[in-house]
């Protein structure tokens, strides 16, 4: 029983500290009381339920408010997209020998991406760790993401601050539901959510990017844009549509034609064929599908966490 107590107590770390102090002993008592009646599978489900609600309480997604649902839907694709872009750009910067040693094309621009991404990750992590200060964390994340490229020496990608801003907005978009239960905050929260959705739109309209010189079109990255766009769309679809685990599998299968296309296409990324990048697409589509399913199960729970 002592081992179970320790294990259950560990689960409660998913909850914010203030909530844990208020409710922790009570929830622990309930978990322990039910322990003898549960099999290992049910114990795992209870554990995931507790962790999911704890994280949800930290993030503050309120499922009974339209604004909360919209923002939750906007935030997750935004976050997934930012992660995907960062992955691809990180891969560009560090794994392709030809590009890594080409400071003219991918010098400071590529080096900035990990910094922006790091700021973004730190912002999200600190907001989760310190739920009472999430607005400060979100604001700091936005400011830092924009300030870093602006403060650095002149570089050959003038649109970088705009991209940083859009991606940074995904963080407050995630956190906005937590700050928006009050009517007075909903306008701001919706604005942030809309900006996040706008990011998705910009990434998705890859052909328009080429025509108008949008923020995601840049040299070699232009050839990558369709794949990023597909990823973003796949994430959006997965996150908004997926309701069952089978949907996640179906969404992953949807990536297959694009895998084939990438092999046939052979568009070079700095001399490297496209198919090197596309495995990320497959993995991300599956991950997004699973995340979407998980998120949809959360938003379908009947109770809102305030």
């Amino acid at each position: 029983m002592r081992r179970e107590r320790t294990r259950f107590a560990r689960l409660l770390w998913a909850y914010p500290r203030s909530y844990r102090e208020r409710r922790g002993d009570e929830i622990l008592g309930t978990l322990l009381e039910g322990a003898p009646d549960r099999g290992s599978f049910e114990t795992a489900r209870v554990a995931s339920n507790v962790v999911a609600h704890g994280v949800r309480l930290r993030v503050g997604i309120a499922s009974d408010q339209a604004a909360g649902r919209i923002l939750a839907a906007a935030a997750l694709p935004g976050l997934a997209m930012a992660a995907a872009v960062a992955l691809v750009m990180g891969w560009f910067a560090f794994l392709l020998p030809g590009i890594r040693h080409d400071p003219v094309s991918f010098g400071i621009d590529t080096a900035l991406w990990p910094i922006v991404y790091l700021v973004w990750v730190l912002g999200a992590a600190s907001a989760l760790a310190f739920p009472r200060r999430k607005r400060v964390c979100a604001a700091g994340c936005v400011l830092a993401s924009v300030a870093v490229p602006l403060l650095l020496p002149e570089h050959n990608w003038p649109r970088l601050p705009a991209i940083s801003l859009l991606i940074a907005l995904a963080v407050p978009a995630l956190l906005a539901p937590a700050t928006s239960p009050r009517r007075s905050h909903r306008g701001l929260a919706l604005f942030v959510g809309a900006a996040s959705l706008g990011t998705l739109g910009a990434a998705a309209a890859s052909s328009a990017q080429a025509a108008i010189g949008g923020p995601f079109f840049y040299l070699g990255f232009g050839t990558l844009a369709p794949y990023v766009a597909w990823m973003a769309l796949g994430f959006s679809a997965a996150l908004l549509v997926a309701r069952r685990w089978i949907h996640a599998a179906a969404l992953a299968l949807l990536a297959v034609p694009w895998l084939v296309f990438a092999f046939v296409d052979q568009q070079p990324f700095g001399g490297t064929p496209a198919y090197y990048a596309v495995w990320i697409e497959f993995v991300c589509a599956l991950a997004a599908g699973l995340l979407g399913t998980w998120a949809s199960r959360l938003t379908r729970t009947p109770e809102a966490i305030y």
Partner: protein
Amino acid sequence: MSEVREPTFLVLVALADGRRHGYGIIQDVERLSSGKTTLRAGTLYATLDRLASEGLIEGAGEEVVEGRLRRYYQLTVQGSAVLESESKQRLAVSKEALRRLSRPRGSRPRIAGGFA
């Protein structure tokens, strides 16, 4: 007061005849729903938080049993009223369903049209 969904309704019913603690509610909800609804701890406490914030339930003391904290909950006056109103509405719908089903088959309305 937002819509009363099934698990919320079951929690309110579980508290209808007196105070209960967390695990007691979980067990009663499972019994009431014939095992169809299983409330897990995370969902239960989210429900209790919301019901408390809406003034439908309130704390009713606590005790320590075998080293575990039990906090009890009970319906407030407003909670009883909401439960009564919701129960009457559900009862009326159920009665109507049974009344319609008890009609002879021939007298039930048929769906117009059909498949070729």
